[in-house]
């Protein structure tokens, strides 16, 4: 019987494992499928990580190393793939060195991260040549293996990885012709629009999409069209760009196949498990954190969230189950989801961290938590955008006897 098993050795898993250890768990096991820990951070060689947490601008590998070098008394199995997790906390995994394993845990932390949406997910019509990659796949080829996927690129989607890759490929000598975004606003951080596109005069086409990919064997070009408010291409607005590469940065999907396999309920809005205030899923003793729960904008927040999950897993493993009444949290006007979706006030330490994303770009609004008509808490924001995760801290005392809280975007009166 293992005390805490953490599935995934990326930023979420490492922070959870460290926190579980620091909160009293003496037998913590991290299972990582890659040959080293760090997860996707290893290929994120750009800077900008850790500003909140370390007050420094670190690259991804540096940020990961701050955690990877703090794993004393934590067992790490790398190059090991978890095949199955069950609701009664059995983990089935396989590796070269240990073969097929079946491990029973007192508590489990799910930290599998997310994957990129593909061409199929958005059904881009056209030929199917080589040269269409998710931005992350191209990033791996470039930053880990030292190969450029192409020389002339168009990027679909303005997610952060796509923007980062626009700059990275440009610096390595490629021509990035355009970044094309379906929505009327960018999906990435504003700073990345500035330093990855504007710095290199790469045009950003908002409210546009790729309507055709051409190329018999390798991409030869794309057709781009403006879209209307219904996000459908407008006939007559098409223009062509010749290129050998299309990079897709069209969203991330939490990787919850193991979660589903265990029968843990998934929130359709986040594509991650429903979680309580301490990141416990609706399956007792199984916790989740990081991008497997909801897609974060900054790794700093992943670390903080995962530390809460790791601590809660250690507490659960020591025999203290969370209990008490449950307040449901709902996404109201202008809010696409909330994490946590459920709060057990008796299990909270004075305040609750709440994360969510807004549905649109807003200036000068209030983020309001209500219990019916009563305002529980309110936070002013000069600027909110879907590309940036919102974080509010709500004191439990203010929640009173609420059965349901609604988080919404409201105009400042």
């Amino acid at each position: 019987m293992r005390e805490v098993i953490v599935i995934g050795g990326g930023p979420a898993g490492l922070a959870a494992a460290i926190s579980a250890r620091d909160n009293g768990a003496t037998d913590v096991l991290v299972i990582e499928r890659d040959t080293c820990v760090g997860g996707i951070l290893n290929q994120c060689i750009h800077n900008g990580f850790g500003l909140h947490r370390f007050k420094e601008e670190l690259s991804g590998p540096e940020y990961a190393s701050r955690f990877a070098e703090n794993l004393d008394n934590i067992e790490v199995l790398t190059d090991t793939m978890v095949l199955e997790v069950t609701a009664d906390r059995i983990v089935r995994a396989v590796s070269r060195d240990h073969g097929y394993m079946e491990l029973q845990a007192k508590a489990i932390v799910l930290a599998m991260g997310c994957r990129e949406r593909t061409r199929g997910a958005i059904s881009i019509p056209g030929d199917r040549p080589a040269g269409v990659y998710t931005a992350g796949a191209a990033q791996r080829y470039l930053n880990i293996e030292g190969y450029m996927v192409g020389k002339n690129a168009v990027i679909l989607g303005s997610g952060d990885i796509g923007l980062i890759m626009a700059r990275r490929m440009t610096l390595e000598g490629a021509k990035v012709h355009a970044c094309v975004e379906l929505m009327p606003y960018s999906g990435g951080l504003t700073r990345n629009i500035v330093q990855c596109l504007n710095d290199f005069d790469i045009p950003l086409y908002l409210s546009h999409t790729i309507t055709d990919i051409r190329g018999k064997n390798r991409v030869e070009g794309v057709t781009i069209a403006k879209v209307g408010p219904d996000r459908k291409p407008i006939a007559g607005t098409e223009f062509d760009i010749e290129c050998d590469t299309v990079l897709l940065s069209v969203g991330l999907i939490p990787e919850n196949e193991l979660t589903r396999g265990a029968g843990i309920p998934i929130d359709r809005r986040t594509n991650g498990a429903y979680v309580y205030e301490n990141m416990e899923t609706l399956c007792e003793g199984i916790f989740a954190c990081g991008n497997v729960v909801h897609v974060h904008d900054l790794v700093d927040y992943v670390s903080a969230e995962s530390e809460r999950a790791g601590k809660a897993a250690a507490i659960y493993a020591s025999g203290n189950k969370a209990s008490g009444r449950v307040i449901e949290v709902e996404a109201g006007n202008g809010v696409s989801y909330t994490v946590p979706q459920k709060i057990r006030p008796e299990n909270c330490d004075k305040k609750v961290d709440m994360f969510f994303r807004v549905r649109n770009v807003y200036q000068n609004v209030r983020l309001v938590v209500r219990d019916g008509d009563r305002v529980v808490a309110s936070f002013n924001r000069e600027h909110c955008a879907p590309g940036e995760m919102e974080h509010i801290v709500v004191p439990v005392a203010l929640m009173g006897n609420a059965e349901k809280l609604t988080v919404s975007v409201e105009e400042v009166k």
Partner: protein
Amino acid sequence: MAKIICITCPKGCHLTVDEVTYEITGNNCPRGAVYGKNELTAPTRVITSTVAVSGGEICRCPVRTESPVPKGKMFDVMEAIHAVRIVSPVRIGDVVIENVCGTGVNVIATRNI
């Protein structure tokens, strides 16, 4: 008045900078004020890339400039980085290029290999 977006941190504050006095509004922290003035007078950027490394478990070592370098020198710095070959073991913080392109800034390794 120049309108720029601060890139110091992910907040992305919308700054308004007076081109004469460099007086700044819209910043949420002092770093924004510094950024706003620099961006108009002498813009700088941190450069990140990889260099070839032999003898390690992977063949590219990620590197970055220790601090921002003049924006106009970005491609010169890239060229200098391309020319470098290093040998494992490498530790985070090891200087890969000293005083790159005369900027006074070192290029350092950002991964242990």
